């Protein structure tokens, strides 16, 4: 009971950029730092320490160089944790994985985040608007509270 309330009332979010074009990253930064959006009013606090995080927001198609780092960071987060894949790159690899068609996709990327770590929420857009990100984060919080 208290556990659920406390989890709903303080959420720490950590961002990891895995080689996207920066578009998604900037929009998340906007959601966090722009007073117009202000993520903190939804009780979500930005952190840069995996030990503190509850939600891991990942953007970009995971490049091969970033794959081990992403895995390690995910492992460093104590349960309960959620992963949000933000932007079409993080969902399915975006143009880097799909645009090539017959020519094949880029051989420098692994693809969507779900190929590396389990994903709980997908936020579509290229990039998603800050309000999309905020709404998605707000709507996954009950999931977080319910975990173990």
């Amino acid at each position, binding site marked *: 009971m208290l556990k659920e309330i406390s989890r709903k009332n303080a959420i720490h979010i950590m961002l990891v950029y895995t080689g996207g074009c920066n578009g998604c990253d900037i929009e998340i930064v906007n959601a966090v730092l722009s007073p117009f959006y202000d993520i903190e009013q939804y009780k979500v606090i930005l952190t840069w320490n995996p030990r503190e995080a509850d939600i891991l927001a990942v953007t970009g198609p995971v490049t091969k160089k970033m794959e081990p780092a992403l895995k390690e960071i995910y492992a460093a987060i104590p349960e309960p944790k959620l992963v949000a894949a933000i932007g079409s*790159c993080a969902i399915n690899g975006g143009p880097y994985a799909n645009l090539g068609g017959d020519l094949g996709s880029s051989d420098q990327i692994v693809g969507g985040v779900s190929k590396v770590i389990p994903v709980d929420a997908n936020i*579509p857009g290229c990039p998603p608007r800050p309000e999309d990100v905020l709404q998605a984060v707000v709507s996954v919080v009950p999931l977080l509270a319910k975990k173990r």
Partner: protein
Amino acid sequence: MRNMFIFMLKGAYDNIGRIIFAKDRKTSIQMRNKILAGQVTYPKTVNEDACIGCGACANICPVDAIDMELLKKPVKITKSYVKEKHPVFNPLKCMYCFQCHDNCPIFAFYGMPAAIHPRHVGDFDINLAELLQQPIVMKDKKEIDAIVALLDEKAKKLMTEG
């Protein structure tokens, strides 16, 4: 240093108001309510009025992010052409390559705003019946053929026979 002092005095006045009365707050309350109620929706991606239901966008899309769905009520566009299907866009699959936009005949043949745009199609008025009467402005024969190949049978007839 003197400037700094002036700023501090002025700032003290402003900021006391801000701290106590939340003066000149920039956070959008409207957006806050929308987000808390879960009402943020994806922007409009298909302009129904401008779409002729030709299926080119669905055929070109490399990741099948567009489905052509049957309209409950077919729309009559010209004397001989009735629109029966319309595109439905799925943002979770899309990778925003703009192929649908660039191959939509409305844009490609006439240089008008396309009826589909994966991000936000925009608001504009278009008179389809009139537009379709005009000659195609695109010059490149190869390109025209490539796009016509994407259209479904009925639309192909409409485009090639006018």
